[in-house]
């Protein structure tokens, strides 16, 4: 089956399917054990998951090396045939021998972008799986339950106004539950399969299926501690907000299928190869692009659908690192990158401006957040905004390079945050930390690497990608001077990024401990957690290096990507690219200056002396309320939905039979139909008098009336 010499691309299929094995095994074993009445938590499945993903990562490495070797020496058509296949999955209409009316194929297609992404996802995934073995160790035995929350309420958006996170492990609850060690890895493995399938899929339909699968895995994992109310609502919120984006994705797919009769990404891209796309009107072209982009907006947490990502931090920290920072949220950017030629110039402009708004709003919100994971969550939104902006201004390479580098340093930052939370026994409030560099040095200094990388310090991976993004934006802004804001916004935000990241680091690790009791109980994490940190730190430094390393344009990873850059339809893109290259040093210098200003200001405010009580007060105002997005959504949609639910619940409760007992029931609507029929019967009964005279009179009058109508119409 796996004839690797003719079809080396099949190694990717194998690597994709491999994580499905532990998921199936855990599910099956769990069911059998449940039927056998044995409920003690198991752990073996977790190790199997880690082993399978490591094997996947190995295959991905072999595949990437082979692919990039072949793509250099073989002709393009042969590479295409060796690294992509498809077959019909669903045939609609037509008999066996006829041509079917419609076909939904499945297949895979490896290109430069997917090969790199695949290696990144499996590599980071393996490290995070390893980390989770340590982080989730509490789940190996029974876990005490948290105190029960109050009754049913509304919305997941109020969670961060509540006092410090009541962790499920905190004492004071009644009873306990079984540990969910294996279940966690079941979800993670299922997620890994879905994500990898999304990467190799060669058509939009298959992408959509995986898209939903990663969405549901995200739902399971955000709601992993579902005893906690806020976790349940956050999971719902993530799922429901993503539906909005998916509706757009479906519209985009429908337009593509209606216009071209295919959903294959390569075929669709080929239709848009020239500047004058065939077979589609300009309006539909825009609808197609906006639809697909709306899907990406939902998944990649762009304004206006960004509100779910910060709440998703309710999930365990390895989940935040893998799904809500490094891989799944990047799927939207990846999709835009893969479908790049399908976007009309107007749509690319929309993408750029959405990215601009997102990166600015999220960065400003991150300035005042006090929960360590929320700062990182907003920073993720902001960085995804950078990627979208880069794609929108024609910087395809820059945006996707940032996607790859960001994955490494953001996974590192989240895992460091996880290590801190683990070491502090589930304390996440930055204001109670401080001085932790002495207690957990490995975490502190690996996190410093991540902070430097995301701030764009020279020679670290984030520098290469951010530099390219800013020069693309500068080139675009110079070619289209009315859109110069697209350069100023990211530049300003680069300073904000450096500031809030260093604020986080100084508050957590710098200065003196602010909560002595917490500090005394803090401990460095075990090796199974710190080793992934160190590996990720190495990658965060060097993943984008090229020769010479002081030249941001020389990044080897960037060059690999650049060779695969598709044809785009942006405004004056050729001119913008030329201007970007010409003014590259200017953009890089400004970016460095911005980062230096941000770091310096953070040092003045939080590093040089201990933060004042005023700086540690509960933040208020526009930024602390996340620009009121959640409040507006609550008022406009959430509360209206709840009102509608109350209304229909009241209709259902109006049960005449059992009203006296006060029994809530679902019979109201059914009974009202029956009551209507009975009342109507009673009313009609009066007509049936049984007296012939009345009938005859009615008959005569009706006849006269009908005749009158007849004559009236004949006239």
């Amino acid at each position, binding site marked *: 089956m796996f004839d690797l010499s003719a079809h080396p691309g099949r190694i990717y299929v194998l690597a994709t399917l491999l994580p499905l094995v532990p998921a199936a095994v855990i599910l099956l074993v769990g069911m059998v054990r449940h039927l056998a009445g044995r409920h003690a938590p198991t752990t073996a499945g977790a190790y199997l998951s880690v082993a399978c993903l490591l094997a996947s990562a190995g295959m991905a490495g072999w595949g990437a090396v082979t692919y990039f070797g072949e793509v250099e020496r073989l002709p393009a058509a042969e590479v295409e045939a060796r690294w992509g296949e498809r077959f019909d999955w669903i045939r609609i209409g037509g008999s066996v021998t006829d041509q079917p009316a419609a076909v939904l194929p499945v297949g895979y297609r490896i290109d430069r972008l997917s090969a790199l992404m695949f290696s990144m996802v499996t590599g980071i995934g393996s490290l995070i799986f390893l980390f989770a073995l340590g982080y989730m160790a509490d789940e190996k035995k029974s876990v005490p339950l948290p105190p029960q929350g109050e009754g049913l309420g509304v919305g997941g958006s109020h969670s961060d106004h509540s006092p410090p996170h009541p962790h499920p492990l905190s004492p004071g609850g009644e009873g306990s539950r079984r540990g969910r060690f294996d279940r966690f890895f079941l979800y993670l493995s299922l997620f890994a399969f879905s994500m990898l399938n999304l990467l190799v899929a060669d058509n939009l339909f298959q992408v959509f299926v995986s898209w939903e699968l990663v969405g549901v895995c995200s739902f399971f994992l955000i709601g992993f501690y579902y005893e906690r109310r806020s976790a349940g609502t956050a999971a719902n919120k993530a799922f429901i907000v993503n539906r909005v984006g998916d509706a757009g994705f479906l519209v985009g797919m429908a337009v593509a299928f209606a216009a071209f009769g295919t959903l294959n990404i390569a075929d669709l891209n080929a239709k848009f190869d020239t500047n004058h796309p065939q077979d589609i009107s300009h309006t539909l072209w825009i609808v197609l692009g906006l639809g697909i982009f709306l899907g990406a907006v939902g998944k990649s947490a762009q304004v206006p659908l960004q509100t779910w990502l910060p709440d998703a931090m309710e999930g365990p920290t390895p989940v935040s690192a893998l799904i809500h920072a490094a891989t799944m949220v990047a799927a939207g950017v990846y999709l835009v990158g893969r479908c790049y030629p399908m976007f009309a110039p107007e749509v690319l402009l929309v993408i750029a401006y959405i990215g601009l708004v997102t990166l600015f709003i999220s960065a400003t919100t991150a300035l005042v957040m006090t929960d360590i994971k929320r700062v990182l969550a907003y920073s993720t939104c902001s960085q995804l905004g950078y990627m979208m902006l880069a794609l929108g201004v024609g910087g395809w390479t820059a945006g996707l390079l940032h996607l790859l580098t960001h994955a490494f340093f953001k996974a590192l930052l989240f895992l460091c945050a996880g290590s801190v939370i683990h070491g502090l026994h589930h304390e996440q409030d930055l204001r109670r930390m401080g001085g932790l560099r002495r207690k957990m040095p490995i975490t502190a200094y690996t996190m410093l690497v991540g902070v430097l990388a995301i701030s764009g310090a020279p020679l670290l991976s984030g520098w290469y990608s951010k530099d390219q993004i800013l020069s693309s934006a500068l080139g675009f802004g110079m070619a289209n001077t009315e859109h110069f804001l697209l350069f100023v916004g990211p530049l300003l935000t680069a300073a904000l990024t450096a500031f809030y990241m260093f604020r986080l680091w100084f508050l957590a690790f710098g200065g003196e401990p602010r909560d002595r009791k917490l500090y005394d109980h803090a401990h460095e994490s075990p090796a199974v957690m710190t080793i992934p940190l160190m590996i990720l730190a190495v990658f965060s430094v060097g993943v984008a290096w090229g020769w010479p390393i002081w030249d941001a344009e020389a990044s080897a990873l960037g060059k690999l990507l650049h060779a695969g850059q598709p044809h785009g339809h942006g405004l004056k893109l050729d001119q913008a690219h030329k201007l970007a290259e010409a003014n590259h040093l200017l953009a890089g210098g400004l970016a460095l200056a911005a980062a230096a200003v941000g770091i310096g200001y953070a040092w003045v405010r939080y590093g040089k002396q201990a933060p004042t009580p005023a700086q540690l007060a509960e933040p208020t105002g526009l930024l602390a309320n996340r620009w009121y997005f959640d409040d507006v959504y609550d008022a406009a949609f959430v509360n209206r939905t709840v009102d509608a639910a109350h209304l229909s619940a009241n209709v259902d409760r109006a049960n005449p039979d059992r009203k006296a007992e006060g029994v809530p029931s679902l019979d109201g609507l059914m009974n009202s139909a029956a009551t209507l029929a009975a009342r109507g019967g009673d009313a009609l009964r009066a007509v049936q008098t*049984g*007296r*012939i*005279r009345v009938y*005859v*009179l009615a008959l*005569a009058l009706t006849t006269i009336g009908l005749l009158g109508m007849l004559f009236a119409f004949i006239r």
Partner: protein
Amino acid sequence: MSELSLPPFLILSAFLLACGVFCLATKRNAIGLLMGVELILNAANVNLVAAARFVPSLKLEGQVFALLVVVLAAAEAAVALAIFLNFYNNHATIDVDEATDLRG
């Protein structure tokens, strides 16, 4: 004596029909109802015969139908009278408003 045209016959027929319907709508006596029905049937008969006389394409059809109606009316009257007789035997009245035994 000049030949009559169609409308006088139709007017007569309509008058008979109106009388019959009025009879049905006002009487409570079962025999009275039966007479009203006879009036309506005869109104129809007048129509049929007149049509046979004045519509050129018709030959004997009108008369034949009128005969059929007469036979039908006789049969109907026989059945109805038998019912009324039995009703009278059981209830000692032929007021149709008293016939409520089958009401639910």
